């Protein structure tokens, strides 16, 4: 399985991390909860939920660290019954990113930490400077938006696959 990314520069570092650390799931996200890359998930909506929770945990741990230690906690580890979760921050020229990864007995916290440091360095080196993005949507996007929302709320017939407003297959 390959990592799926929203920005190309994170793909190689994330894929290498996944391959080396032998993790089951990996998410690379903005601290706001927006996903930049993922490995192991099949539905985009599941990715978004995991990102929201991961970002919340990271933000909470950071604030807790400030309260208790004067500095934010940058890494967090949680041992579950079968799976373990590791969350850590990687500063880049594009701002801080957060890695959330889950692994089982195939890997270990030590290995994940080792390869996270490699990932962090690779992201730091690969991050392009921030760029102003141009317009993405047509001027008349409202028509598509209204149709999509009407479908969501059951106020219109669902469009045929391929039509504007039709959902794409899950990421």
């Amino acid at each position: 399985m390959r990592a799926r990314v929203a920005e190309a520069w994170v793909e190689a570092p994330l894929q290498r991390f996944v391959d080396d650390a032998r993790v089951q799931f990996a998410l690379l996200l903005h601290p706001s909860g927006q996903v930049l890359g993922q490995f192991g998930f099949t539905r985009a909506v599941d990715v978004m939920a995991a990102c929201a929770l991961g970002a919340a945990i990271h933000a909470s741990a950071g604030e807790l660290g400030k309260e208790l230690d004067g500095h934010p906690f940058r890494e967090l580890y949680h041992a579950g019954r079968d799976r373990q979760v590791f969350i850590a921050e990687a500063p880049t020229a594009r701002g801080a990113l957060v890695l959330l990864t889950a692994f089982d007995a195939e890997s270990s916290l030590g290995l994940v930490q080792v390869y996270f440091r490699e990932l962090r360095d690779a992201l730091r080196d690969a991050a392009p400077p921030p760029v102003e993005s141009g317009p993405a949507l047509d001027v008349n996007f409202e028509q598509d938006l209204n149709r999509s929302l009407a479908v969501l709320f059951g106020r219109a017939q669902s469009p045929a696959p391929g039509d504007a407003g039709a959902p794409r297959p899950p990421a």
Partner: protein
Amino acid sequence: MSTPYTDVLSAVTRQRGVLGCILVSEADGIIVEANVQVGIEAGVAGALVASLYRRARLGTDAAGLATVGFLQLEAEQGHVCAVGRDGLVLATLAEPKAHIGLIRSAMLHAMEALP
């Protein structure tokens, strides 16, 4: 700062040709205690050797050969040795010319002496 494991590791690192000795948790690859020469990344080596030892132990178990007594790898520029007990792995990094027999003996004694 001295810990209950300091003397155990010293007994191994005082052997000729030993570059470093790392006591690491087998399950999570986290270092308990390390005594390595400058330039050796104990965290990286410890995590990887623990993973290797764990797989070797699972392999011998699965093959019905009981547990791993001693694991040795020969690399171009030295040796990696590992022994395990009670969820801990003692990893030793040594030069090519090091006397592996003595190191093995020191490591096995060290593991018996673990608190």
